[in-house]
Each structure stands twice: as structure tokens, then as C-alpha cells.
């Protein structure tokens, strides 16, 4: 067992969580500092690992089991992809920890919250450094557990507890497919480690593969993609992410914007060689595209600031998945990277706004915050600019352009879909900024009395906003992600012009529609009610449960009750009833039976 930097990065948050839960439960302040300290330390170590660079290597930390030829290890893979991703995870993680020091200052469950954050850092690090499928699955589930614990942090609130349950169950459904796909890939490629798998699959000459083999690979890839559908909240398992906003805002920023939901995309990038060989790419890219469009449509009609951002995350994840499906996994990874920074910035900014407006989350009760909270407004505007891909000066422009290029190359309809979604993105984000920040305060008690938040809260915002702006430039992204990971930088062409056009149309329309309004002039029930997916699923589940319950009831009544329980009892009582008639105390009856018995004996004796 070698103690290398990646091992320390992995285990430090784990020990922090254990320490907090076992020892420090009562001293919340110390717990917060321990957790933040561990996050900071992992960030420093990650930067060190990044700077050291070097070729890709895998170090076995612990051999979990050895059965025949199968060896399951906890092994840490240190290559360009994991190094870059770790900067995102530890960087945003540290900033969220610092933000939470102030945001969760007065919370009763503060120690539990920071323990949960540490547990999450441990699990996410495990996914990033995973060397083989089983290890990734273990940490995948651990991340789901951390998400459950953190979404349900305020568990006494029924909606929060329900949302946590919903998130976990929806994830589990995806993980079911993931598990099966994993096993199929193992059987076909004969190896569970990503390196070994890649070698085997690359070695398979595509021309020599039979149609059956390609079909199996396609099905396996799609099943593995089920894990992504669950974890990264793609259609049709997208229903948990908006409800997950019941958790505290730092949780939304860390888990449901930057890292956990990106784990699905990260996993697909890790196994992108599978997508290349099989025919699964089309399905994957369409699911991504449809998710992006649906989420953007739903976002245009939401009124809770966190919900808007949640649907925005869904939409951007759709973009990333679409890129993976189209084979442009570098573009996808690049967008994951830039999106993490500015989305976390947006969420933490919304957290600052919510905190300043005394926990008010409805944008129609805000307004005029640009004057009352200038720093927050500036960072929020910068991150919004990155999200809607303002040309050339923001990171979002470069990564989104890369994805749009890929879409245009491979398929016309997807390009139109992606461009329209970009228009909608500009529309709803501008709507959010105009309604919440510009104009005058609509609620005296909340927004009217807002003031700028403490430096502990706005410094992370500033750092994230800066990364949101510069993170797209080749120098910065190249240094972190590795130059070979970046997509080839195309010249400014049709894609760029379409992008700028959609931005202007979307932002302009929102500005004109929403400037100076007090109520939402547009009212599209279908979008506001999230296309009624939740109701549909509830009905489906109810029908299935009722059906199953009826079947079981019939079987129980007929077989177990009828034959088993009542049958046995009935048999006993019937036999008893019959035998009872022999014992009535009637002498003549007894004499008769006596005579009958003698007759029988005589008959038997003679018959011999």
C-alpha cells in the first residue's frame, strides 16, 4: 500500500468526516474548520499533483478481494483527466466550504452538515480517481448516499425528506442499468480496469466484429449510460434534480451543479472508447439534446431562483451528454470544466441573495438588488454572461462553441436543437437577472432591506466569477486539463454567428418582456408544471403498485389463505367433526359398531 498524494487526497476528507461524526459532534465551529481545512489541504495537494504531471499511472491502494483470476482493487488512476477534474472538485469544494462557514453559521445541524460535505468530497474523489468499474460503482453509490444526506439536511421538513428519497431512488433506477451494463462490458472485454478495457476494445478491429458483437456492445454502452441518465439527471430520470433544491444552497452549488451531476458525464468520457465502437452514440446524443431542450423550456416559467438554476444545470448537462454521444468527448469535458465554475458561482450568488433577502427564494419578491448588493450583482452577472456564452470574453463561449461545432458536423437537427436551446438559455437567464436584480424592490421586508453579504461569502463568489471568465482561455484550461484534452480551436464561422444571433435574440426578448414588470406576463402552464412529468410518474407508480398489490392479494387469498391456512384448519375441524359422532355415549351405538367390527373380522378370516 503506497501513500501517494492521490491517496492522501482521497482519505483526508474521509478521516475528517469520521472525526467530526465521532468526536466533534457537539462543537460545530471546530467541525466546520476541520472540514474546511481538509478541503483546503486537498486543493493544495491537487495543485501539487497537477504541477508534477507525468505520465498516466495507476497505484493500487488496497486489494479488496482476489477470487481466481478476478482481482478487485481500490486503485487510484493518476492521469491528465483525473488531475484536471480534481482541481475542479477540490477547488469548488473548498470555495463552497468557505461559503458555508458563513451561510450555515446559525444552523442547528452544522456539524452534521460539514461531516456530510467531507463524506461527499471523499466519495467524489473516489469516482474521479477510480481505476476500474467496480471501484467507480462503489464511490458512485457513496456519492448518492452523500447527496441523500445533504439534500435531507433539514429532514424535519417533509418536502426535504421526500426530495432526498426521490433523488436516491431515481439514482438507483439508473444504477440498475449501470450495473448490468458494467457486467456485459466485462464479459465482452474481459477486463474491468479502464486501461485494460480500452486496450481490448481498441484491439478489436471494427471491421472484423460481427453484427451480434456490435449489438451487444451497443446495448452494453446504453446500459452503462443508464447510470449517467440517473446520476446526471437526463430525460427521463431528470425529475429529482429540481426537487433536490430543498437542500441548503451550498449543497446545490457543490453537488448538483459542479460535481456529482458531472460524474455521469465524467464516467462517459472515461469509457468514450465504447461509444466510438458501438452504435450507441446516436441515442446518447438525442437524449442529451432532448434533455437540454425540455429543461430550457421548463426554466422559462419557473419563479424560484434555485429552480431556474437547477433547470439550467439540467440543460447544460444535456449539452455535455450530447457532445459525448457525438463523439466529441474533449468538448464535453471542456464544457464540464467551465460550467462547474460559473454554475457554482451562480448558485453561491443565489445563496447570497437568498441569505440577504431573509430566505426568500421567489424572484418576483426580489428586485433592485443591483444597487443593494453590488459585488454579488457583479459576480452573478459575470457568471450569467459565461452561461449564455457572451462572445470571446467568457469561458462559456469557447466550450459551448466547441459543442455546437460538434453538433453541426455530425447532425443537422441536433444543431438546430442546440442553437434553439442556447436562445432559451439566454432568455431565461436574462429574465432572472432582470427580475431579481434590476428595477426596484418588490418586497419591503425582504429585498428592501437587503445589504451586501460578508467577505467570507463574497470572496468565493469573486474567485468563481473570475474562473468563469478566464477559465476558457487556452492557457488556463490547457494548464489544468492538459493541452491534448482541449478540443481543436476552430475559426470563427457559421457556428459563432449563430451563437451570437441566438444570444442577442434571447436576451433582447427577455429584457423587453420583463423590464419593469411586477408579475410574469407570460404564463405557459405546460412549462411551469414541468410538462407534468412528476404527475405522470406518480400515476405510473401508483398503477404499478396497485396492480402488483392486487395480484399478490389474490394469490395470498387463494393459495396461502385458502389452501394453506384455512385448508389445514378446515381439514382438522372436519375430521374432528366426523370422529366426534363416534363418541356420543350411546351404548347401543357402541354395541352396533362392536358387532360391525366382528362381522368385518369374520369376513376377513373367511376370505383368506
Amino acid at each position, binding site marked *: 500500500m503506497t501513500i501517494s498524494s492521490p491517496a492522501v487526497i482521497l482519505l483526508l476528507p474521509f478521516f475528517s468526516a469520521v472525526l467530526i461524526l465521532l468526536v466533534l459532534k457537539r462543537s460545530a465551529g471546530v467541525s466546520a474548520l476541520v472540514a474546511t481545512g481538509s478541503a483546503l489541504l486537498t486543493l493544495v495537494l491537487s495543485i501539487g499533483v497537477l504541477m508534477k504531471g507525468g505520465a498516466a499511472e495507476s497505484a493500487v491502494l488496497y486489494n479488496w478481494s482476489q477470487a481466481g483470476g478476478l482481482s478487485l482493487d481500490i486503485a487510484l488512476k493518476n492521469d491528465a483527466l483525473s488531475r484536471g477534474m480534481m482541481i475542479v472538485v477540490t477547488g469548488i469544494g473548498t470555495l463552497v466550504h468557505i461559503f458555508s462557514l458563513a451561510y450555515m453559521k446559525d444552523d442547528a445541524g452544522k456539524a452534521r452538515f460539514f461531516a456530510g460535505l467531507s463524506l461527499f468530497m471523499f466519495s467524489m474523489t473516489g469516482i474521479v480517481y477510480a481505476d476500474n468499474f467496480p471501484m467507480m460503482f462503489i464511490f458512485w453509490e457513496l456519492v448518492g448516499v452523500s447527496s441523500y444526506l445533504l439534500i435531507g439536511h433539514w429532514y424535519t421538513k417533509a418536502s426535504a425528506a421526500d426530495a432526498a428519497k426521490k433523488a436516491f431512488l431515481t439514482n438507483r433506477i439508473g444504477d440498475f442499468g449501470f450495473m448490468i451494463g458494467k457486467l456485459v462490458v466485462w464479459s465482452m472485454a474481459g477486463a474491468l480496469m479502464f486501461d485494460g478495457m480500452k486496450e481490448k476494445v481498441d484491439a478489436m478491429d471494427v471491421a472484423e466484429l460481427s453484427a451480434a458483437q456490435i449489438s451487444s456492445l451497443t446495448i452494453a454502452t446504453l446500459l452503462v449510460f443508464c447510470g449517467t441518465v440517473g446520476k446526471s439527471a437526463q430525460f427521463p430520470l431528470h425529475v429529482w434534480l429540481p426537487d433536490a433544491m430543498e437542500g441548503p444552497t451550498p449543497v446545490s452549488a457543490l453537488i448538483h451543479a459542479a460535481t456529482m451531476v458531472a460524474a455521469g458525464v465524467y464516467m462517459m468520457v472515461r469509457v468514450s472508447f465504447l461509444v466510438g465502437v458501438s452504435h450507441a452514440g446516436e441515442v446518447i446524443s438525442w437524449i442529451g439534446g432532448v434533455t437540454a431542450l425540455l429543461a430550457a423550456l421548463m426554466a422559462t416559467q419557473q419563479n424560484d431562483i434555485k429552480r431556474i438554476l437547477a433547470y439550467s444545470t439540467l440543460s447544460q448537462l444535456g449539452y455535455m451528454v450530447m457532445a459525448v454521444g457525438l463523439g466529441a468527448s474533449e468538448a464535453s469535458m471542456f464544457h464540464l470544466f467551465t460550467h462547474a465554475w460559473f454554475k457554482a458561482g451562480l448558485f453561491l450568488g443565489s445563496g447570497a441573495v437568498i441569505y440577504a433577502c431573509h430566505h426568500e427564494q421567489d424572484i418576483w419578491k426580489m428586485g433592485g438588488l443591483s444597487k443593494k448588493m453590488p459585488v454579488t450583482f457583479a459576480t452573478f452577472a459575470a457568471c450569467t454572461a459565461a452561461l449564455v456564452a457572451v462572445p470571446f470574453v467568457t469561458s462559456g463561449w469557447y466550450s459551448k462553441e466547441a459543442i455546437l461545432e460538434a453538433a453541426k458536423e455530425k447532425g443537422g437537427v441536433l444543431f438546430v436543437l442546440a442553437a434553439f436551446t442556447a436562445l432559451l438559455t439566454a432568455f431565461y437567464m436574462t429574465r432572472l437577472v432582470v427580475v431579481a436584480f434590476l428595477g426596484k424592490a418588490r418586497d419591503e421586508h425582504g429585498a428592501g432591506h437587503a445589504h451586501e453579504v460578508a467577505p467570507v461569502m463574497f470572496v468565493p463568489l469573486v474567485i468563481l466569477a473570475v474562473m468563469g471568465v478566464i477559465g476558457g482561455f487556452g492557457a488556463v484550461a490547457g494548464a489544468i486539463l492538459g493541452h491534448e484534452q482541449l478540443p481543436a480551436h476552430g475559426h470563427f464561422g457559421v457556428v459563432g454567428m449563430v451563437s451570437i444571433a441566438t444570444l442577442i435574440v434571447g436576451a433582447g426578448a427577455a429584457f423587453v418582456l420583463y423590464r419593469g414588470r411586477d408579475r410574469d406576463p407570460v404564463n405557459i402552464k405546460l412549462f411551469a408544471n414541468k410538462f407534468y412529468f412528476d404527475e405522470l410518474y406518480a400515476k405510473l407508480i401508483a398503477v404499478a403498485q396497485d396492480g402488483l398489490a392486487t395480484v399478490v392479494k389474490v394469490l395470498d387469498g387463494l393459495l396461502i389463505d385458502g389452501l394453506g391456512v384455512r385448508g389445514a384448519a378446515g381439514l382438522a375441524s372436519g375430521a374432528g367433526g366426523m370422529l366426534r359422532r363416534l*363418541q*356420543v*355415549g*350411546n*351404548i*347401543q351405538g357402541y*354395541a*352396533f359398531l362392536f*358387532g360391525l367390527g366382528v362381522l368385518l373380522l369374520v369376513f376377513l378370516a373367511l376370505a383368506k
Partner: protein
Amino acid sequence: MRTMVTLNDYLIASGLLFGIGLAGVVLRRNIIVIFMCLEMMLSAANLSLVAFSRFRPTGGLPDYDGQMLVFFIITVAAAEVAVGLAIIVALFRTKRTVHVEDITSLSG
């Protein structure tokens, strides 16, 4: 010429006697009558024994083993009657009835 009385006739008579006795035991309600029918069944058996003794001669003379057994049976029957009547008297002292239908304390 008058036909000879064969063994079969005696056996039929004995059987009929036994049958009547059995019917009496099962069907009559008075316990004394049941007891008398019981004795009738015994005498039926005696009759068949004597019949066999007469109709299966050994060396020209009847087989006296059957008749000897009849003597024993009569003696035993007498003893049995003594005991049986004692029981009936004891039963009458408690139940005050000779109707066998009313004696049902062994039911259940």
C-alpha cells in the same frame, strides 16, 4: 319319507337366534332386555356347538368335546350374568332409570 334334519338346519337356527339377539342388543331400549338378548346370543353359540358335536361323530359316537365346552360356557354365562346384574343395579341406584338412552355421561 321325511327328510333328515341336517347340520345346516341347526346352524341356520343358531344364526337366526344370534341375529335376533344382536338386533335386540342394538335396538331395544330397556337395559334388562338388552341383557337378555345378550344371553340369547350366548345360547346361539351353545346351539351351534352342540350341533357340531352331534353331526361330526368320531368312531360312531358324538364328539363330546363340543358338549363339554357348552357346559363351561353356561357356567361362565351364569357368572357373567351375576356381575352384569350387579352393575345394572349399581347403575340404577345412581341414574334411577332403565332406559339406555338416558345413560350418556360418557359422551364427548
